[in-house]
């Protein structure tokens, strides 16, 4: 673990409790790498943090174009934080296009670092600037540092045997060095990473190190930067930590779940943004009994996973919205066959191809209802990147215990953003109990466990248990094809009752805040950080507000209704047009208000606070009219 570095003495140090930095530049500028390197160092240093990468939809939009801007935001602090930050305190913009698309977000008075070398006439034009914005009045509200980073970097690399182009490509490490210096962070983590990455190409390794040190030294020596900042370690629960993105944690969680169930994991998927990284991650771990198949399409992927589930493996498939639509017929078959198929859906902006690289929570209704016939299944949603790990295990646990398909609703924000994750002690996680039926004499494929209503999982290879499953309605107990009217109704009802019964096996909801009060904010999925942060801020101002976060969406935790009844105003905040809100109204007949946002972006804490205020005021609560409360900042 890295220790606090000895801070250089000859510049002013300002202590802060938190900061948000955004690196942005052309897709070719390596901003994702810069951001994640800064994050790694910061994490190891001991801050709490959260990140938000933001890729363009194009692979490589033309260099310098607005469409080609790539960004990476990191929010780090000396206390517990849960979001990647509303607005950056520091913006590093490597070219005019990056400046143009990101400047609007920078806080007033924030630090703006730009690579002035990139502000050529050509680049300005590509970004749609008529004149050089650095020379305009508009910059006055920021602390602008326009450095010729390309030139400085080239100087720092003098003597490198690399080509000019390759030298130039190191400039992101120069920027990284500068930022490390600015926040008093050591370089060792990145130096080591460079060694590992470019081990085979010593010239490249050396150049990148020179760039990194160059940036760092430039900060230390230049007169243009007057001070740097110090953000103390956060008091995190003791343990071993690592950074993890939601997609990584998802992959890890399913591998862990399979091991907990003592099963092989079969993951069949068809690539689709933002779910592909789960496939990539899982593909790497053949040594952990993970079989991955890139199927010909999403339907085949679901089919393969279903076939695997029949065979006794953990059958998993993963996709994003359009792929979930395609899988629905197969999922309906899994419901009828009552097999433990798990479906990951990493949501993105819709409808149709929509905003493929952006986040949204608009597949909830599809997950709940997007199948023909009465076809209930379990739906769960992780709340944070790290929670993806735990909920993946829950998905497999529920699927196997109840012999049902389970939809695991992640989203692009969860999938791509990272947070420090306290690595769980695998040995302490409860095993997933699996019992494959063996007794031929008593076997009936659809004889139900009286408690869970689930049917036996009898797998091929077991002598005497040969049986056929199909999509046609089946006779109770025997599972034979059956078209009788009353049998059908019985089966429809029992499939529903089985899913409803899962509520008995899931944890009760915990209220964040007091158990009763004026306002209850309800969230689900990846909005956890933003919602709890907003609610916490309002609680601190003495408002009787609490929140709950639904990680189990079908069925709901059994104490949900009771909690709803303890509050006057219920607000669902979600990244769609009010999907959970309408489900809750339909289920419980309670009055629900909605805060919605459908912009392909996560909630900002501020937006939520404003939204809550607006609703509260419109509902006429006098205390919300007070001036002190009306403007939260």
């Amino acid at each position, binding site marked *: 673990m890295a220790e606090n570095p000895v801070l250089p003495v000859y510049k002013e140090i300002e202590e802060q409790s938190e900061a948000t930095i955004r690196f942005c530049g052309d897709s070719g500028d390596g901003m994702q790498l810069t951001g994640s390197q800064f994050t790694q160092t910061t994490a190891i240093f001991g801050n709490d943090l959260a990140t938000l990468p933001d890729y363009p939809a194009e692979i490589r939009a033309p260099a310098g174009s607005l469409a080609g801007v790539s960004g990476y935001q990191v929010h780090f602090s000396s206390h517990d934080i849960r979001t990647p930050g509303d607005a950056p305190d520091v913006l590093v913009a490597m070219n005019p296009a990056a400046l143009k698309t990101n400047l609007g977000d920078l806080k007033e008075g924030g630090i703006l670092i730009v690579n002035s070398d990139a502000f050529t006439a050509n680049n300005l034009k590509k970004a749609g600037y008529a004149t050089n914005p650095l020379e305009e009045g508009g910059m006055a509200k920021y602390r602008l540092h326009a450095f010729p980073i390309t030139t400085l970097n080239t100087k720092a690399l003098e003597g490198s045997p690399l080509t000019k182009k390759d030298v130039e490509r190191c400039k992101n490490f120069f920027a990284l060095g500068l930022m490390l210096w600015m926040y008093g962070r050591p370089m060792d983590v990145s130096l080591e990473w460079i060694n590992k990455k470019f081990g085979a190409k010593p010239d490249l390794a050396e150049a990148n190190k020179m760039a990194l040190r160059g940036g760092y030294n430039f900060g230390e020596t230049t007169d243009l930067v007057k001070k740097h900042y110090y953000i103390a370690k956060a008091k995190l629960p003791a343990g*071993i930590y*690592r950074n993890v993105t939601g997609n990584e944690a998802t992959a890890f969680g399913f591998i*862990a779940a399979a091991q907990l169930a003592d099963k092989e994991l079969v993951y069949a998927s068809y690539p689709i943004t933002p779910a592909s990284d789960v496939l990539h991650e899982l593909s790497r771990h053949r040594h952990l009994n993970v079989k991955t198949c890139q199927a010909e399409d999403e339907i*085949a992927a679901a089919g393969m996973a279903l076939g695997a589930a029949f065979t006794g493996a953990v059958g998993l498939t993963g996709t994003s919205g359009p792929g979930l639509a395609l899988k629905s017929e197969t999922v309906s078959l899994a419901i009828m066959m009552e097999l433990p198929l798990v479906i990951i859906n990493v949501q993105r902006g819709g409808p149709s191809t929509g905003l493929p690289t952006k986040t949204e929570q608009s597949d909830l209704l599809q997950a709940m209802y997007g199948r023909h016939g009465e076809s209930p299944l379990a739906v769960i949603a992780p709340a944070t990147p790290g929670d993806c790990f735990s909920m993946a295990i829950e998905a497999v646990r529920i699927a196997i215990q109840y012999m049902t398909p389970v939809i695991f609703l992640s989203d692009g924000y969860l999938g791509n953003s990272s947070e420090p994750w306290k690595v769980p002690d695998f040995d302490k996680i409860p095993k997933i109990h699996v019992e494959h039926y063996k007794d031929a004499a008593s076997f009936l494929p659809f004889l139900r466990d009286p408690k869970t209503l689930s049917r036996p999982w009898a797998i091929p290879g077991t002598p005497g*248990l*040969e*049986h056929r499953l*199909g999509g046609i309605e089946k006779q109770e107990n025997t599972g034979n094809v059956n078209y009788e009217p009353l049998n059908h109704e019985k089966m429809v009802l029992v499939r529903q009752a089985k899913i409803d019964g899962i509520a008995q096996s899931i944890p009760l909801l915990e209220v964040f805040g007091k158990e009763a009060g004026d306002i209850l904010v309800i969230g689900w999925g990846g909005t956890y950080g933003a919602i709890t942060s907003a609610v916490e801020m309002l609680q601190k101002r003495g408002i009787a507000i609490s929140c709950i976060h639904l990680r189990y969406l079908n069925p709901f935790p059994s104490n949900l209704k009771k909690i709803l009844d303890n509050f006057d105003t219920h607000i669902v905040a979600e990244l769609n047009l009010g999907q959970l809100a309408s489900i809750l109204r339909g289920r419980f007949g309670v009055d629900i208000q909605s805060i919605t946002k459908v912009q392909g972006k996560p909630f900002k804490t501020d937006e939520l606070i404003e939204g809550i205020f607006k609703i509260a005021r419109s509902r006429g609560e006098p205390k919300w009219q007070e001036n002190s409360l009306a403007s939260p900042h």
Partner: protein
Amino acid sequence: MAGELASIPALTRKDFVSNQDVRWCPGCGDYAILAQIQKVLPELGIPREKFVFVSGIGCSSRLPYYVNTYGLHTIHGRAPAIATGVKVANPDLAVWVITGDGDALSIGGNHLIHALRRNVDLKILLFNNRIYGLTKGQYSPTSEIGKKTKSTPHGSIDYPMHPISIALGAEATFTARTIDSDTGHLGKILTEAAHHKGSTFVEIYQNCVIFNDNAFQEVTDRDTRADNTITLEHGRPLIFGKDRNKGIRLKGMTPEVVTLGENGVTEQDLIVHDETLADSTYAFLLSRFEPPHFPVPLGVFRSIQRPTYEDMLTAQIKKAKEKKSSELKNLLYGSETWTVAE
């Protein structure tokens, strides 16, 4: 599975008859195919519980209900994908796919060609009756052009597919054709299919008495059968005809029907059937044969060996395990961690 052979009590046809009433129309060709399957299975030396029959939707796809093995009667067109999942998860199982011309070639065309090209060890039996039976008589991808059916009262305007051509185009390692009415040949081909390791594609001409009766009359009628079919036998020249005096020879790439003894044609001039050719072109050539100009080939068109998908996957796992410890901890901790002390 070889090791277990000794311990298996001899199975009989009866062991493969399920307790479900068979519900095809009287006279349906499916009965004959079911009977042959039930005859062949016990002869394979594989324990009954290791068989999985996977089907889609269609009259033909009801077959798994009638075979007393593990089975999945799935959804329309998806059987090859679901069967792939079964085989990949447990390569030790003997997985058979039962499908129809609509199920396999219309809605399921894509899964079929991908299962074939991956060389997943599935025995795929396509019951080709050139019609949609279960939905009561619409034309299928193998129906002849101009065919009048419920959905084409003015005649079909779709050129038919040749199932074996498409299978070969999709890199299938085993392709064969047989017919419901010739139970001896049917049983023989099913046996050969069962013994092939890798994706195995068998087209079975099957008569639908209700919606497309006598679709294969020209190849089943006693009078015309011998002249309209040719039985492919490995290593034997392509000879056919009632008097076994017709043969096929090549003129450049173009095949022609010749009469032995006429114009000096002898057996030596004929193509000798070779099912093991690495190049699939010859098999493709055969797949284009159609009456009235050519006889319908029955038998194994091509049978070659290459590693199967599931074996390669298993090998990757084995190799990866040799290299890396299967400790989950290594994965969870990753390469960069830090410790927060109490």
